């Protein structure tokens, strides 16, 4: 995309968002059409946000909550991606492996990741380990599916060219199999990151010592809508930033398609 086109898109996005904030302001503060008990006005939300940043809320400051949540989500995401992409490569490459693993997969897939939370807590307690387990379960699946589909849709001639050139096994995996499936792998990674983030926030709602989900949970118990909204805002912005970062990595990694 050209610089001007990008600027224009950014301007449009900015004006949409400003319009939304103005509407919010009009509906709450100015006209009172929505009562502040149900939905906080911009000022209350701003105040709650400042409180969250410092002195803090639900036991810690915003930075501590965010660092805690991000550590878990990135740890879980990386673990899930490493496992999921490896398994996906194996299942895409070997019909035998696929025949063995797929039935287990079909059995477990209809279970929503959040349904694992009770078992995870029972096994691993309310701490971080249980959350990592649930994140891994949630984030693992899209990686496996997309990677194995990616491998299976590689053109036959790519394999044949690689055989003809006498490519040894590990170089084949690293320089042919993985790059050829990389576009599909990244589709999986994007879905997986979303799943990891959603699942983490949900898991923290159930029980946590710190984290952005805990803020939401405590704010609900305190009947503090402005804080809920602030925390939701933080969840949204963090999710957006992570996707943005992954998109940046993807463009670098797939530069050979567009360079």
């Amino acid at each position, binding site marked *: 995309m050209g610089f001007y086109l990008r600027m224009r898109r950014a301007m449009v996005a900015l004006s949409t968002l400003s319009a939304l904030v103005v509407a919010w302001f009009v509906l709450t503060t100015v006209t009172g059409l929505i009562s502040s008990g149900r939905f906080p006005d911009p000022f209350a939300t701003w105040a709650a946000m400042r409180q969250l940043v410092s002195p803090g809320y639900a036991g810690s400051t915003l930075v501590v909550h965010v660092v805690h949540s991000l550590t878990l989500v990135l740890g879980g995401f990386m673990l899930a991606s490493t496992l999921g992409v490896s398994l996906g490569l194996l299942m895409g490459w070997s019909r035998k492996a696929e025949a063995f693993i797929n039935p287990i997969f079909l059995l477990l897939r209809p279970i929503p990741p959040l349904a694992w939370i009770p078992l995870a807590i029972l096994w691993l307690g309310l701490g971080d380990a249980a959350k990592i387990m649930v994140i891994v379960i949630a984030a693992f699946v899209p990686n496996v599916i997309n990677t194995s589909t990616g491998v299976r849709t590689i*053109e036959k*001639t*790519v394999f*044949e*060219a*690689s*055989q*003809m*050139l*006498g*490519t*040894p096994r590990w*170089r084949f995996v690293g*320089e*042919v199999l993985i*790059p*050829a499936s*990389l576009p599909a792998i990244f589709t999986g990674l994007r879905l997986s990151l979303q799943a990891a983030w959603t699942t983490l926030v949900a898991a923290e709602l159930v029980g946590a010592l710190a984290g952005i989900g805990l803020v939401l949970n405590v704010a609900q118990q305190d009947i503090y809508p402005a804080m809920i909204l602030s925390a939701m805002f933080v969840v949204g912005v963090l999710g957006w930033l992570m996707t943005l970062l992954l998109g940046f990595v993807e463009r670098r990694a797939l530069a*050979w*398609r567009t*360079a």
Partner: protein
Amino acid sequence: MGSISFDNVGKVFGAGAGALVALEGITLTVADKEFVAIVGPSGCGKTTCLRMVAGFERPSSGNISVDGKLIVAPGPDRAVVFQQFALFPWKTVRGNIEMGLRNKNMSLAQRMPLVDAALKLMNLESHANAFPHQLSGGMQQRVAIARAYVLDPAVLLMDEPFGALDAQTRVVMQEELVRLARLNPRTVLFITHSVEEAVYLADRVAIMGRRHGRIKAIVDIKSVRLAEQWDQLERIEDVMEQESFVHLRSSIWKSLREEK
């Protein structure tokens, strides 16, 4: 060295009621440094012949050997140039050409001069660091040819390598291949739909029939080319205007027509 020999080769796809006899009783020898083209109607089994030499398919009966050794698997001694190029799009031109040499465990110092020579031979020096999608079809096919040549293979296998190119690029590539064949003669098995291309490039042309994939006739071109001194002519259209060329072309063409 590099001679290919088909000894009474048959190929059947599938089994039982759905079995399809693709090839039967193919016997053909391509001598060292000889350029043999195969022409024949669509579906007669040309690609299957080439894929068996490459090691991608196994004959159902008979033997295929290169330099007397039976073919068991694909390998860099039998380099293939695919119709759809089959380059690695995530590797640069240099990376693509270099891959086979790295697989032979050559050091960078050993590979560099070979890759540079291949780039020069195919007029690709200025695009060494480009990715395949940045190149035109003709250039991509030149990369594929360079990738095959640099392996220093015993035989080169080309399945309609210029089929995906437009007419002008095709002519340029044909001239290029003739130039290459003179500079650096190879054993080549070349498949094409174009009779003109076969007569222009090959030492011998094998004509395949439609029924049960047999070789119907083998036409010697080389003796005519030498006698008529086609090699003195610079451009492809000059060769194609020669009476001897026209005569060979139409006799092969007639033989093919009987098949349709």
